């Protein structure tokens, strides 16, 4: 559903994404992890067609995101990290606009809106102007907007920011249910526990380079640490890439870092080939 081939994106002399190769299959939840400035949001913006790759190609549902931008956009539901809502529209009016934009007839738009209003519990405020919404209300409305046309690919940038525990649970369930229904979910997050819980595979990107792609279990196996959490493994991986001492100091940490350092290149290569 999402195919990324040898994609590079520069910001002037700085390389934000370097030779990225990745395939996310139908029905898969993929969590894209990495430190700030690693290239996660740039990758997401390229997938949804906002930015164009300096080199390489991205296809969504078989459509090239540069040459067939409309077709690929029609497949995607996008939840950005800083969503835009029309202040002077109510939540319902916003959803109506989006439904019309995706070509649904009026009656059908109302049906879809009713479904999303119920799903995200927007009923209490959906007829108020969005300028009066709290951050959490806005985030739920944006999710409803992204889900309205039942996308085949859901791209989510930092989905849990500003959500209360109930909404976080709802979003986690939603992501897993959508994947179960055949939707491809590409998610960028710093909330490692969420990634661990919902993602089928994770990808760790650092300074534009993909360091690891695989399941959490594969990562544990490689480090021979089946008891370790994703958070711990992630920190070791990134620290090793930075060439600094582990963030989680204890007895055998130094050896782990060496392992991670040595393994970095082979891992990203081998796991990608497998996928």
């Amino acid at each position, binding site marked *: 559903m999402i195919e990324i081939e040898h994609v590079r994106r520069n910001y002037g002399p700085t390389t934000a994404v370097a030779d990225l190769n990745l395939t996310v299959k139908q029905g898969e939840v993929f969590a894209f992890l990495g430190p700030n400035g690693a290239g996660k949001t740039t990758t997401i913006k390229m997938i949804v*067609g906002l930015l164009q790759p300096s080199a390489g190609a991205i296809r969504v549902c078989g459509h090239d995101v540069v040459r067939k931008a409309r077709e690929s956009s029609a497949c995607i539901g996008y939840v950005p990290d800083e969503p835009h809502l*029309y202040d002077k529209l109510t939540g319902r009016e916003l959803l109506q606009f989006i439904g019309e934009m995706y070509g649904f007839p009026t009656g059908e738009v109302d049906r879809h809106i009713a479904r999303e209003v119920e799903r995200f519990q927007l009923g209490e405020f959906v007829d108020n102007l969005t300028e009066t919404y709290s951050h959490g209300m806005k985030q739920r409305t944006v999710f409803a907007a992204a889900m309205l046309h039942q996308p085949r690919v859901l791209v989510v940038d930092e989905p849990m920011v500003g959500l209360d525990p109930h909404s976080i649970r709802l979003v986690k369930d939603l992501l897993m249910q959508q994947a179960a*229904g055949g939707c491809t979910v590409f998610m960028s997050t710093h909330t490692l526990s969420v990634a661990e819980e919902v993602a089928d595979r994770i990808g760790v990107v650092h300074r534009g380079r993909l360091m690891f792609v695989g399941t959490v279990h594969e990562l544990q196996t490689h480090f021979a640490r089946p008891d370790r959490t994703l958070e711990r493994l992630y920190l070791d991986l990134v620290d090793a890439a930075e060439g600094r001492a582990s963030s989680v100091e204890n007895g055998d940490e130094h050896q782990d870092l060496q392992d991670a350092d040595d393994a970095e290149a082979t891992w990203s290569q081998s796991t990608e080939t497998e996928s």
Partner: protein
Amino acid sequence: MANYVAPSPEALRTRPPSRLLSASEESTVLMRLRRRLLLASLRQALKTARFRLALVVALTLFFWAGLFLLLYETFHFLASYIGSQGALHNQVVQFTFDVFFCSLLVMLMFSAGIIFYGALFRSPETIYLLTLPLRPGRVVLYKFQETVLLSSWGFLLLGSPMLVAYGVVTGAPWTYYALLAPMMVAFVYIPCSIGALCCLAIARWLPRFRMSLLGGTAALVVGLAGYAIWSVVAGDRSDLLTERWFHHTLNRLSFTSSYLLPSWWLSSGLLQAARAGSPIDGAGFTQSLWFLALLVSNAMLGQVATHALGSRVLRASYSRLHTGPSGGTHRGGKWIDRITMAVTFPLPHQVRLLILKDLRVFRRDPVQWAQFLIFFGLLGLYFLNIRRVTYDVDHTLWVNMISFLNLAVVGLILSTFTTRFIFPMISLEGSRFWILGLLPIERDTILWGKFLFAAVGAAIPSTVLILISDLMLRVAPLVVVIHQITCLLLCAGLSGLAVGMGALMPNLKEQSPSKIAAGFGGTLNLVLSALYIIIVVALTAVPCHFYLAAQPAGVQLPEELQTRLIRGIWISTGLAVGVGVLATFVPLYRGLRAFRRLQF
């Protein structure tokens, strides 16, 4: 939310695909969106801001009516000399219209280009629209329509009273009035399209040089305009406003009457329409329709070209613009920071740091200083050439009047800047108040810092400008002193008003300074600022006028009378100082009180 029952995987797998809209459907959906947004804003304004809305409408009508009366008198005066019809009339009016519309053509191109850039490449709405399955050309057209509206309202507000006044004076037939709106709208589309096309081309092919190109072109246009003004007023002053001077001026500005300029099509079309009812030329209406067709066809071509280019380059341009190299580093103190810290040494250290912070924000935002530079640069250019422009520079009273009018103009421009940039400062601190609010400083210090930043920042260029004006006009030393005092009063009073009103009426939800300034508080601040300028300038100008009127050149007044007149000047100046102190400290005091209580 926990009660939500998910659809079955089968239902999700068999979901219907969304449909791509046709071009006309896209247009309909976006038009509906715009209508919804407009109606919602209007409903909200009627519900929550009736007074503000009424004030804006009343001020607009007042401005329109005032301009209409002024221009009616001007055309009436003109008609009394050159008649309301005939070859000479047509030549003079055509010349006036050509110059006026040609200037507006250039200004509209610039403003449209800049507005279009902001609307298309810097607006969060564009990011959102680009993630929807919309044709890029449709996004471009949607933003282009917004640009046309935003960049042309000033032209319509300025041009419509002029053209209606002309029609009334010349007794134009109803067809003239019927053609006014379509002609003006069609004309506006042409410079807007050119501006939009230039913007798209620069964003696509020269994104790294966009600021240099904009600055260079602006400098070139200002230079050319300066040269044109100079060439008109240069030469022997005894020649000014004579027939020979008029012919010279006509020749020098004859480029504005080029057949290739849309401004010429507009002025010719309007003149033909106004002549349509006269017995001199019965074919006028047909000819005006021809010019309308010319304008409309070019406007449509402009829109089609904008759409075509936008369709091809929007996504690539957007991508290039947002992946350019980031701004340079700003490490270490600049010389201007060191000077600021040095010259503010008597102030408490915390106030100096706040001033420095505001100065850094100001100079790193070209929108702020570029406008400041253009307006004050143009004023400086005018003041330096004032002896050539002003008709009777040897007449003391005339010089005195001009010098005080210059003072008022500086004050009025300053008031627009304090309203646009100083008034929103407190509102803009709202979202980042966690920085200032948690610092170990009094809230009062923050407000005083902003006031001093505004007052000193305004005083430096304003006093220099007024000094240039006075030196060029060779006004009496006493008047120079009065002008400098008045100028300082204006700077302090306008800054006090803007900072105080900004703290009294903050809009903590809004992030756009222009929207904050355009709100009720900003409008009220502008009105109060204008009143303050009128009062202070009148208080200082009138006694100076009497003082100069009482002593014609070379005549020595009796000492007692002279003493009384000078005393009158100082008393009046004292009154102005009193008004200035009130205007500075009352809003500041009220602002300080409100700011201490403000919950962020």
